[in-house]
């Protein structure tokens, strides 16, 4: 009994300290209704002003399905740089399944954010928009193809929907596998989680399968399971002559060591998405051939859309609807390219200077079309 009371007391003390520390750090925001009236792209405007415009700051929620790893760091770096430059603060949240995504958005709204940049919609954007509407919070998405989601035609018209930036998972996977085949791959295996975890993974595999089919080949084997280390082991023991692996996730933890010690360096091609931080090891040992990057760019562009809307200057298309911008991925083929990309991503793959011409408060002529052009030229 004594032990239990001590435990209870410690719980109280620790919680009190932690919460006290946190609350003194952040000021609880009262939910402010956004000062927006969705405006069209401002045409020529009066008063050229010379003084530097002070950018209003906002509290912005950033939702990603994971909060750690190299991939996440690059995304966070980029968005944070923009947030700092615009005097805004970020609140992080995560959630993968539909109910987690809903809970995360609810909690963000309840904690008083002004806008949400969501990279993990869980496929329930229509519901997320309803919640945002209730709280008066603006919503932008990145890294999710909202056109495939239920209720898209309805929620895209929601006045709190700001737009999205996404890439074509299916297409890039198709391109990668076609490239692998062109490079001489004959025995291609699939690696990753089982179907049904997320639309992104499923799209990637769909593209990969199609490439193999179109080339008239068949898949060597599917190593897709929740227990990835085991799947990796089985793959290598049963198919030692595999010469290409299409991985829809970051396989570094499970595949690279066995491959390197198995002497596969230089004899195999492997793809990697959403890198957790070790892909350069793969490159250096001649294991990885294609590393897909670019989500950090999507996030930054999404932030711009969101920020404009928060200041009351939504960028809209000619039909008055919010834009869903398709942006290419980049594929990195070597350790140098990867290192280069990581370096350039520090502080954001796009610098604030590159993007400030698209911030309406700083440039009344900010053009959505040029913004889209910028996006589509990513990586070229």
């Amino acid at each position, binding site marked *: 009994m004594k032990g*239990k009371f001590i435990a209870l007391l410690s719980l109280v003390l620790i919680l009190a300290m932690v919460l006290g520390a946190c609350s003194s*750090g952040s000021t*609880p925001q009262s939910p402010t209704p956004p000062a927006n009236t969705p405006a069209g792209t401002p045409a020529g405007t009066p008063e050229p002003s010379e003084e530097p415009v002070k950018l209003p700051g906002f509290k912005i929620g950033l939702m990603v399905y994971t909060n750690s790893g190299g991939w996440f760091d690059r995304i966070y770096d980029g968005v944070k740089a923009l947030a700092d430059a615009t005097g805004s603060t970020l609140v992080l*949240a995560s959630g993968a399944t539909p109910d987690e995504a809903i809970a995360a958005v*609810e909690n963000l709204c309840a904690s008083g954010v002004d806008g949400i940049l969501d990279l993990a919609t869980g*496929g329930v954007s229509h*519901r997320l928009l309803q919640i945002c509407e209730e709280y008066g919070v603006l919503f932008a998405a990145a890294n999710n193809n909202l056109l495939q*989601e239920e209720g898209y035609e309805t929620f895209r018209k929601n006045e709190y929907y700001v737009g999205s930036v996404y890439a074509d998972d299916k297409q890039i996977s198709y391109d990668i596998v076609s490239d692998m085949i062109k490079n001489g791959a004959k025995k291609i295996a699939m690696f990753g989680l089982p179907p*049904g975890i997320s639309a992104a993974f499923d799209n990637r595999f769909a593209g990969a399968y199609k490439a193999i089919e179109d080339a008239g080949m068949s898949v060597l084997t599917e190593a897709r399971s929740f227990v990835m280390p085991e799947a990796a082991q089985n793959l290598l023991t049963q198919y030692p002559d595999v010469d290409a692996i299409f991985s829809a996730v970051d396989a570094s933890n499970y595949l690279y060591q066995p491959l390197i010690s198995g002497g596969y360096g230089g004899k195999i091609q492997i793809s990697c998405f959403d890198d957790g931080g070790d892909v350069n090891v793969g490159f250096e040992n001649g294991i990885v051939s294609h590393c897909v990057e670019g989500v950090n760019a999507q996030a930054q562009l999404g932030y711009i859309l969101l920020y404009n809307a928060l200041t009351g200057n939504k960028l809209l298309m000619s039909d008055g609807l919010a834009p869903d911008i398709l942006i290419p991925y980049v594929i990195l083929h070597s350790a140098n390219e990867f290192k280069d990309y990581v370096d350039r991503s520090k502080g954001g793959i796009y610098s604030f200077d590159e993007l400030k011409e698209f911030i309406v408060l700083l440039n009344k002529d900010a053009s959505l079309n040029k913004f889209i052009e910028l996006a589509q030229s990513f990586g070229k």
Partner: protein
Amino acid sequence: MELEKIKRNLSGILPLIGLLVVFALFSAVGGDQFYGARNLTLIINQCFTIMVVAIGVTMVHAHGGIDFSVGAVLALSEMLAAMAYKRTGSPFVLLFVAVLVAVLCSFITGIITVKLRIPPFISSLCMQFTCRGIVNTVLQSKSIGVTELHAPGWGVRLPVLLLLAAAVYVILDYTKIGKHNKAIGENIKAARSSGVDVDFYRIIAYLISGFTVGIAAYFDLLRNGVMSTNVGYGLEMKVIIAVVLGGLSLSGGYTATIKSAVVGSLLITIMTNGLMIVGVPVTYIGIIQGIIFLLVILFTYKRDRQGLLPR
């Protein structure tokens, strides 16, 4: 002995006190952003699925069983219910099918565990893989939308929660079903030699558990508005964490109560919600949750039970 009685009662209320303390702390720091009506309704909606399933699964835990299939069964129920709704256009059919499928799956899990004498750990895992497999094969990465249906708000959910909690509380503490399951959890041999039909009553526990999963599926589907293949992932672990946090001993027996399910579910929901409202940086949330969990378990865990895990 008075001291004994006081100690025993106190030990029972300790989890509730813990909950109140956590709530009070978040209220003090978060202000009415936290304890305001709006946020409270959020908490009710967010803890609903876990709590409803936890309440039902308590029946299974009472006899020392465990169910790793609840997330997958939830998904399968939602899928078949959504499909049935699409075909008939009736929300009542949705509810009916959701409950029916969940009860059937739990029934099969129960039969395999009890009649084939396969440990519940394994049989429920098999059910999990089977249900997930069916969902993935049928849906093929597509999803089914039911966005036109209005999601019941806290006004419906709160009464449903209270009703379910009260019903299972009565069953667990005041009926043969509950008492026999607890006896089985205490000592199955002694229960058998006292005349308890251990097979029959364990299967009943699974049926009750299935029923609550069905109810949870109905509300979850309506809340999401969409049935997609990643529904329910990780639910089983969340439920187990919730009940253990609330003080349930997974080996079952007479110490099993509804309280653990209710308190535990509320605790984890309040923590996620509260920590975000108060503004704890996400990088620290993990550590803080870990410490809080450890402390909570220290004072909810009944140490003179035979152990935390099922035998």
